[in-house]
């Protein structure tokens, strides 16, 4: 049995000075047991291993249960329990937001919600040093556990669930343990956050994190239209303007402003901002020279302004371009589409097998399952966004494995190479590769990146080997092209 917590982290709770009664809290608290199946990126044609664990959730309005995405990701079967009710109820994921580690569940049996109390959220970020209480089922116990502490810090933090997103998070010193994930953190009878991650004792002491109410509210608002659109992103990098000479050279007379270092093509600011621009203000909030803005009386990093935006919203910049002031407005048409550097959940690994050669797109999950010393793969993966590798290679299709067979017996040294072209056609995605290999031809010449020998596969030999390979290696499907 596994108890959910992330990155060695978990949640904590504290008894507020004027807490709502423990009876009230108990009525809304939910213990969640998830049976999950993780995708297998090593043998992608196999269904992954079945595992699972427990976490915490709580009842919110509309007969729904709020919890962490990582508690219910890759779910095959979810059961929920309430305090003092022996029955296990079947739950389903209504919405799941991996980028902010939140999920909403429904329970079909209306009896589950009888007698529960939907908790209410506070409207503000708590004060530093104010006390908080964490409620949940740490270490899998089936009786409620409460811990208390204070708010230690409020800052942008990486969210460990995807390894790629950062949002506001509240740090607390209340004990946080596996199993607390998804539980409410209360202050003065109201929820101020959702416990979600922390550090193991080997890394840091008494450091636990909760997802603050603005992030929770954003998620609940985003799904109001029946679809989760994900976080919007500026898709640019900025550089602090602390150097006096650089400021003078840019024509900056007064305090503030950050330099635009790079703008990712295809992002929200593509065509609106360019490297060398100085962002003076964002949505009317003056940008300080270290990239912070003042928001609701707090000094926060500039992207926090965008954190509250939704698909279709706009963001207004006042900038200095070539020493002349300019106002530009960027629109968020869609969330950043390239998430190969993020851990993914609830997806089926994509792959393609041709003559026993296994081709897969490079991703964080793929590299975790198939560690490589191949410098080309490592570099293109890490530089995927910064060097805009996605422009020519939305997928980096790699020859990830070879199922040995007479048809491919001379190709063993080529494992790990990235596909450049098939029969002279440049390959940008796994789908394009599948299409190229489906076109009738006597032979298929697969050129890998770099200056090595081509892979030559004769159609007749591949056809003759197909059933043999499928049977020997227990491959049910030769390809899965969509997640």
């Amino acid at each position, binding site marked *: 049995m596994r108890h959910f917590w992330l990155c060695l982290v978990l949640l904590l709770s504290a008894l507020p000075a004027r807490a709502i009664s423990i009876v009230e809290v108990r009525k809304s608290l939910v213990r969640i047991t998830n049976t999950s199946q993780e995708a297998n990126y090593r043998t992608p044609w196999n269904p992954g291993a079945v595992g699972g664990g427990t976490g915490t959730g709580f009842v919110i309005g509309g007969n729904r249960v709020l919890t962490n995405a990582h508690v219910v990701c890759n779910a095959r079967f979810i059961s929920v329990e309430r305090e003092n009710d022996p029955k296990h109820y079947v739950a389903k994921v209504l919405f799941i937001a991996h980028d902010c580690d939140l999920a909403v569940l429904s329970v079909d049996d209306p009896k589950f919600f009888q007698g529960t109390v939907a908790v209410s959220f506070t409207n503000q970020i708590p004060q530093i040093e104010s006390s908080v209480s964490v409620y949940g089922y740490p270490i899998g116990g089936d009786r409620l556990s409460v811990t208390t502490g204070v708010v230690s810090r409020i800052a942008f933090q990486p969210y460990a669930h995807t390894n790629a997103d950062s949002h506001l998070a509240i740090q607390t010193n209340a004990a946080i343990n596996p199993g607390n994930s998804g539980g409410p953190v209360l202050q003065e009878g109201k929820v101020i956050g959702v416990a979600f991650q922390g550090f193991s004792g080997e890394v840091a002491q008494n450091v636990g994190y909760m997802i603050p109410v603005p992030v929770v509210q954003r998620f609940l608002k985003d799904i109001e239209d029946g679809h989760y659109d994900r976080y919007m992103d500026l898709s640019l990098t900025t550089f602090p303007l602390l150097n006096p000479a650089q400021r003078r050279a840019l024509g900056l007379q007064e305090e503030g402003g950050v330099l635009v270092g790079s703008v990712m093509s295809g992002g929200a600011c593509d065509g609106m901002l360019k490297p060398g621009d100085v962002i003076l203000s964002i949505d009317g909030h003056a940008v300080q020279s270290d990239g912070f803005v003042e928001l609701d009386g707090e000094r926060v990093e500039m992207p926090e302004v965008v954190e509250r935006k939704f698909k279709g919203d706009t963001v207004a910049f006042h900038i200095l371009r070539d020493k002349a002031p300019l106002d530009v407005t960027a629109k968020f048409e869609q969330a950043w589409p390239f998430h190969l550097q993020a851990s993914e959940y609830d997806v089926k690994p994509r792959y393609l097998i041709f003559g026993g050669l296994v081709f897969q797109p490079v991703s964080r999950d793929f590299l975790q399952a198939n560690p490589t010393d191949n410098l080309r793969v490592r570099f293109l993966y890490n530089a995927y966004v910064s060097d805009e590798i996605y422009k020519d290679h939305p997928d980096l299709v790699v020859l990830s494995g070879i199922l040995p067979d007479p048809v491919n017996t001379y190709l063993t040294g080529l494992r790990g190479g990235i596909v450049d072209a098939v029969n002279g056609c440049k390959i940008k995605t796994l789908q394009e590769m599948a299409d190229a290999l489906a076109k009738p031809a006597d032979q298929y010449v697969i050129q890998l990146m770099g200056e090595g020998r*081509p892979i030559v596969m004769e159609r007749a030999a591949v056809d003759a080997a197909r059933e043999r390979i499928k049977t020997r290696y227990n491959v049910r499907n030769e390809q899965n092209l969509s997640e």
Partner: protein
Amino acid sequence: MHFFRIAAFLIVSLNAPLLMAREKSEPLAVAENSSVSPVSVVRVNVTSQPYDFLRPWSKRAPFQRRAVGAVLPGSRVLTTAEQVANATCLELEKPDSGEKSPATVEVVDYECDLAIVAPCDPKFLDGFKPLAVVEPALGDELAIWQLESNGTLLKTRAQFTTAEVAPYPVGDDSFLVYRLASALQARDSGFTLPVVKGGALAGMLLRFDSRTQTADVISTPVIRHFLKAAAVKGGYVGFPSAGAQFAALRDPQLRHYAGLTNGNGGVYITRVQPGGPADQAGIQAGDVLLAIGNDPVDQDGNYIDPHYGKVSIAHLLSCGSSEGAEIRFKLSRKGKELSVPVKLTHSDPSQSVIESFSIDKAPRYHIVGGLVFQELSRQFLKEWGPEWTKKAPERFLYFDQYQDELFQNDPRKRIVILSHVLPSPCTVGYEDLNCLVVTKVNGVELKSLADMEAALAKPMDGFHRFEIQGHPGEIVLDAKEVEGIESGLMQNYGLPAMKRL
């Protein structure tokens, strides 16, 4: 941090052999009969001091190492190039009397790892018996010569088991090595030692693996080629090559694709270096190399050497002919056979965009207001310690490994980098910048660090503008301020000079 580790490693490796020697009173090795006079070898004592590429204005701590060199005709001594690398003090020492003479490096080739050393006193080696060079045969019993600390010659038997082309320690080249099986013990001269057959030189020890008791030896053909090239009036030129890479052609599907219908030999040319010998001869990637001269090439790229049997054609090309020689390549292109003459030439490693080694050369640098600019080299990457291939900046490792491909059509001769920042009043806000590629200064494209000086002579509106590849795009310094803080910066950080070009 990693400097400390390197230092610790050196101490261990220097001490261990001494301990071993004391523990074993009875040598495992069988000494040959000692009737041969030991006056064919001398000690080569070297103090080395490499440059510190992370602080290119300074050198690392000096260290000593000893070797046993082979005395050659003409009062010369043969040793490995690694032994004399970055030498600040070089001495020859007579084994019996301990008499020393300062010496100089006459010819050194780091690619084949050989060096000729000459004593400053021309009569120092009088009375020594120079070694002739002999080519051993597979299976021969050879001897590895070492010197005891008292000057006695210790000969350890070694069985010549294999001859094959293998990478040499410096640079990217591979040449013929002999593999010997030998129970060699450690002595105070390390493992840079002559290998002898019947009183004649049969190789120089390249490395010894005490775990497997395997010795890799610089082979006689490599030594002969080196000595021959060293004797050429008008300057030494390194080993020739064809400037082409190949892959094995065992795969019947690839053979069919390459247009081969019969036979089972030949290799598939995968890359032809632009402007190199093969390119100039009209050879293309995708051609099949069937024979070199009269030697057929098998499907793995071997030919039958009259002396060593099956050996890679790399040996035939590097040692089988001399620089500038013309040799016929028999090719198959799309099923048609053709024969082209290829003029083999040496490919100078210092001409590559990222140099594979930088020995005896002071690294170039230019410090501007505290920004430290250098040229990217593999030696710079090696400063990340024994695990540099994993720990050095990944972008630079990628540039280095794939430089042939990445910079093939690049006008740059070198990659100029901002290696790090020495914080100063000029560099406020830039302190954390490091390992970035710099493309332009004041609008001038940098083809090498040499272009920086002229570019800095023309500030733009009083500012120096440095264009960085990728984030953060551009950084700026005030030209007057840079000038004003120069002496203070030099004093503060103990810099001997702001640049070395």
